[in-house]
């Protein structure tokens, strides 16, 4: 099996498995509810708070700014909807959302929901042919009327084509007008240097299973001064912004994973970049007309390669590679599993056929040259067959 879909989910680090299982076996911490006042509760709370400190230290933020959630999707929804509601409550003119056209569906659909249910308006910030939002584009959109902008949301790095956004410059532009900026950094943590304080972002989404942590646990880093209306009401466990009893072992695993991923990030970046560059070179050798999408060089996630294979359908390629033990993705699948042309590629100016003919190969901490070998070996015959199987 060659697993080339780490951007969808990457295996838990062995140290994280140890942390989670140890926490599950710790009869006191596992029994306790971190909100309880007795010994078991205190034990659980201590695990949670130490995890919060560990995560904050790894990401260059303060413990009080870490809000644990159950997923990246929850964090994105909380940031987009919560900050929008709070900003509009403070000034009813603020209804406009500025979002990049290449956001993940967790942001995209949260924005669309505010538009269709809450009277928000949205301006999709255009990207260049490599998927990048230029600060001038943001500046122009804000300056059309700075008083009506509720928030800006631009991802740290794109999940499909790996483009790294100029987050620092974008947050500077937003802050000139006192507008908060949220960034979905789900793909970035562990692959890139993510330091919240120096990035300038006001809110940042992360999730465990993209950097060796457990599934089902994430966080929203939310600046102390950023008002945010909760999505989930109840016990108010997380700064009154998020309610729900925390999954203590998962939170502990998330923090350990973040600490390890950040500590190893420079070496990981170097190793993955080299492996990815080898993959790109060899895919081009195997299929000469394959087209690399996204940035060719720097400003790209080190584990990401994304190609269009002219004349092929992405879902045919996926099926044929899967049958040969090579696991890849066509990008981001919707809930019904229907392959739609990627909104990211369309926003980058790709034609619909090229958008349908694409595959994402994403590498992670368990990837080896053998995985690339398996892909490159299977690819020529797979592409040839997929061309014959193209619709019409």
């Amino acid at each position, binding site marked *: 099996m060659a697993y080339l879909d780490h951007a969808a989910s990457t295996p838990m680090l062995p140290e994280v498995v140890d942390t989670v299982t140890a926490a599950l076996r710790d009869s006191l911490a596992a029994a306790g509810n971190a909100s309880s006042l007795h010994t078991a509760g205190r034990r659980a709370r201590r695990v949670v708070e130490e995890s919060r400190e560990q995560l904050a230290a790894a990401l260059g933020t303060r413990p009080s700014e870490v809000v644990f959630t159950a997923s990246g999707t929850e964090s994105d929804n909380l940031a987009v909807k919560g900050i929008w509601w709070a900003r509009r409550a403070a000034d009813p003119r603020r209804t406009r959302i500025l979002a990049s056209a290449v956001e993940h569906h967790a942001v995209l659909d949260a924005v669309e929901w505010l538009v269709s249910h809450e009277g928000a308006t949205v301006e999709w910030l255009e990207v260049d042919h490599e998927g990048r939002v230029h600060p001038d584009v943001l500046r122009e959109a804000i300056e059309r009327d700075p008083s009506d902008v509720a928030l800006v949301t631009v991802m740290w790095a794109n999940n499909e084509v790996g483009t790294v956004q100029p987050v620092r410059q974008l947050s500077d532009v937003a802050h000139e007008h006192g507008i908060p900026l949220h960034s979905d950094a789900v793909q970035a943590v562990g692959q890139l240097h993510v330091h919240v304080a120096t990035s300038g972002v006001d809110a940042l989404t992360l999730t465990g299973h993209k950097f060796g942590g457990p599934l089902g646990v994430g966080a929203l880093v939310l600046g102390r001064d950023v008002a945010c209306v909760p999505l989930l009401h109840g016990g108010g466990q997380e700064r009154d912004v998020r309610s729900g009893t925390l999954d203590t072992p998962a939170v502990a695993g998330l923090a350990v994973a973040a600490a390890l991923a950040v500590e190893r990030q420079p070496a990981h970046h170097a190793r993955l970049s080299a492996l990815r560059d080898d993959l790109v070179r060899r895919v081009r050798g195997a299929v000469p007309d394959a087209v690399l999408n996204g940035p060719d060089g720097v400003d790209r996630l080190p584990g990401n390669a994304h190609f269009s294979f002219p004349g092929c359908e992405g*879902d045919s390629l996926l*099926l044929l590679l899967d*049958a040969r033990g090579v696991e890849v993705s066509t990008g981001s699948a919707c809930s*019904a599993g229907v392959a739609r042309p990627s909104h990211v590629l369309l926003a980058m100016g790709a034609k619909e056929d090229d958008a349908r003919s694409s595959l994402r190969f994403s590498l992670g901490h368990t990837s080896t040259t053998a995985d690339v070998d398996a892909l490159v070996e299977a690819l020529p015959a797979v592409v040839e067959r997929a061309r014959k199987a193209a619709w019409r």
Partner: protein
Amino acid sequence: MRLLAALSGGVDSAVAAALAVEAGHDVTAVHLALSEAPATLRTGSRGCCSKEDARDAARVADVLGIPFYVWDLADRFREDVVDDFVAEYAAGRTPNPCLRCNERIKFAAVLDRALALGFDAVVTGHHARLADGVLRRSVDDGKDQSYVLAVLTPEQLAGTVLPLGHLTKDEVRALAADRGMGVADKPDSHDICFIADGDTAGFLRDRLGAQPGPVVDALTGAVVGQHGGAYAYTVGQRRGLALTVPAPDGRPRYVLSVEPVSRTVTVGPGEALDTSVVRGDRPQWLDPRPLPLECDVQLRAHGAVHRCVVHEDAGGWRLELATPARGIAPGQAAVLYDGDRVLGSATLG
């Protein structure tokens, strides 16, 4: 064999795929996404295009331990089946969309792609028997679908596996239950999957708009009512005619013909619907026989079987029926049978 199983999310295709796996074939499953805006949850009578069906299909594939993919055929389904359905009604004919879907989607686009991807055949849950290129009725008369498969070419049938023809529907459900499949007791799908509420006239009215015209009595020539759109009427229909003038003989009136250009719906007594000679256009043989030929013919899905003699007629067929058929609707298929064996088909003119 390497087989591609089309899983609708219903019990028939689930059991067909299970039987293929158990027969030792290498099976991969696909669910065809046909609706552009699939309903999230089932409402009223169900269609075969909901997200819930996609989920049920995926669950079946998981139980069988086979790969599962969704193929998006919504554009093609709209063009080849839904738009065709509306256009045929607008032209005064009565199309059968299941037949068209089999002809253009399931056993054309999907089969072509499957073969190109290296599969040997497509396996479906249709109730009909197929062996050595011979298509026969299902052993379950009530569920037999040989009529909607008769439009396939011999080449298409050569790439098709139908594991359910020897089973009754009850047996299929029992096999699904034995295998722990949640779809074992799922209700049968509605006849027209893309009209989930079953209101065909409303569906057509939404797409074609109001096109009022006269309802004329065939015997007297008098206008006996007004209608909102001739497309809502099918030859042989009795209900919903909204006649304002009672028939002179006091007997029920039926739709005798639909003329889309003048928007005239002609009604008359039931016996005026009786036809002893019908024409079949674009004939196609699965099991070629010399003409003239005496055989059985079925003129609509789940319709009665008539004895007939088939004659060559200007590139088509002229079918002389031994017993008159009532309410033959242009656009449906005439399917010839020798006993339970399908011989060929043509479109009723």
